[in-house]
């Protein structure tokens, strides 16, 4: 694995006439966990989508896991990125087990990992429940099970702590520790500073689409 997981140089993103990110410079090294804070609309989610190669920057250059953001090589590293966004990426009419098995099979992992992963995130008893019938916290846990199966090198968590009880929040720490121990890295977006800062090696603040210095409140 490359030592520098994320290397963004002057990244800008515009949606129509509106600048979302402006000349953003950020690096994430192997084994490093970055915390991202910022007000609503400061560009945190957009930044995570750019790093996940799901959104192309309109200016600047960047590399993620060795692949340039504008090269076709980015398609080959996507499976090494794990993103948990605001909205749970689950199929509402499939059970938690079916959702997780779907992921496991697509990721080339064995079905045997499904039960273990659901057990690990505390969903063994709810595995037959459809995702649509589950609480937000349970859906989040199911997404954590996905990361336990796919074992990404770069984990991107957007407000992963939101709405989680203490035990579920511990799972975030477990996942972050896991990716760090594999030599990967993580970027965490959170408004819950007290939960996020202990996990992060450094915290940066986004202000109007640019990196600013964060001072702990």
């Amino acid at each position: 694995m490359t030592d520098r997981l994320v290397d963004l140089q002057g990244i800008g993103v515009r949606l129509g006439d509106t600048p979302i990110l402006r000349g953003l410079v950020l690096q994430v090294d192997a084994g490093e966990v970055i915390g991202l804070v910022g007000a609503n609309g400061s560009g945190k989610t957009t930044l995570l989508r750019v790093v996940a190669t799901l959104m192309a920057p309109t200016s600047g250059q960047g590399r993620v896991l060795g692949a340039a953001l504008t090269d076709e090589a980015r398609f080959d590293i996507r499976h090494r990125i794990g993103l948990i966004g605001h909205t749970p990426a689950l199929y509402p009419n499939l059970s938690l087990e079916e959702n997780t098995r779907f992921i496991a099979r697509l990721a080339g992992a064995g079905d045997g990992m499904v039960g273990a992963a659901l057990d690990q995130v505390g969903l063994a008893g709810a595995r037959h429940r459809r995702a649509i019938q589950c609480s937000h916290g349970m859906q989040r846990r199911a997404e954590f099970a996905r990361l336990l199966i796919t074992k990404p090198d770069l984990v991107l968590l957007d407000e992963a702590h939101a709405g989680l009880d203490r035990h579920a929040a511990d799972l975030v720490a477990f996942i972050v520790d896991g990716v760090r121990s594999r030599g990967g890295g993580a970027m965490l977006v959170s408004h819950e500073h007290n939960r996020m800062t202990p996990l992060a090696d450094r915290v940066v603040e986004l202000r109007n689409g640019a990196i600013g210095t964060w001072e702990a409140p």
Partner: protein
Amino acid sequence: MSGFWTQALEIARKDLRTEVRTGEVFLITIPFGAVALMLIPLAVGTETALLRNIGSGMYWTIVLLFGVLVALRQSGVEGTTQEDLLSLLGIDPAARFAGRAGATTLLLLAFELVLGPVALALYDPQPKGWLWIAALIPLVAIGLGLLGTLAAAIATSIASMALVPLLVAPLSVPILLAASQTMDGLRYGNTILGWILLLVTMDLLLAVAGVLSARPLQEASR
């Protein structure tokens, strides 16, 4: 990471499982298709000879119109988060296309098979050449499945589902023509090979177009 066919199979399996749970096709689209077949005789009159003449054409028209709805069913359309999920699992967009088209084709096949007896009962089109019909039904289902899946992907990439009918209408004409002309050819003893060949060609062209455009359409939809 899994291979192309495993990916396609899993996507198709997921789509079909979702359809079984939501019942969009079996509980809504198929009954409406049957109702449409029943309404036509009320509109044009119940003269047996007339109904016999228009029977196969009406059947294929209903299959085409409602078939596109099957292809565009909500349960088969991924939301942005699910699209992102599949991308970040490294799923080949062509495998996604193949899986979705495969699931849609199976649903269309079921649609055709359920509506077939309804058309026979109402119109008595006196079909002949059942072996050819047995080949025609899946060929049409494949064509419409591919066409609907491709149209949905194009519409998603330009964020306008309203354009789907404009995309589907011209491309579905050869399929509709080939299907109805094959039935007529069988009934009146005319040659049908040209029409069957047209269907096979359309299916192949749509499959190639869908596979080749899968990646660009996926990236354009972001």
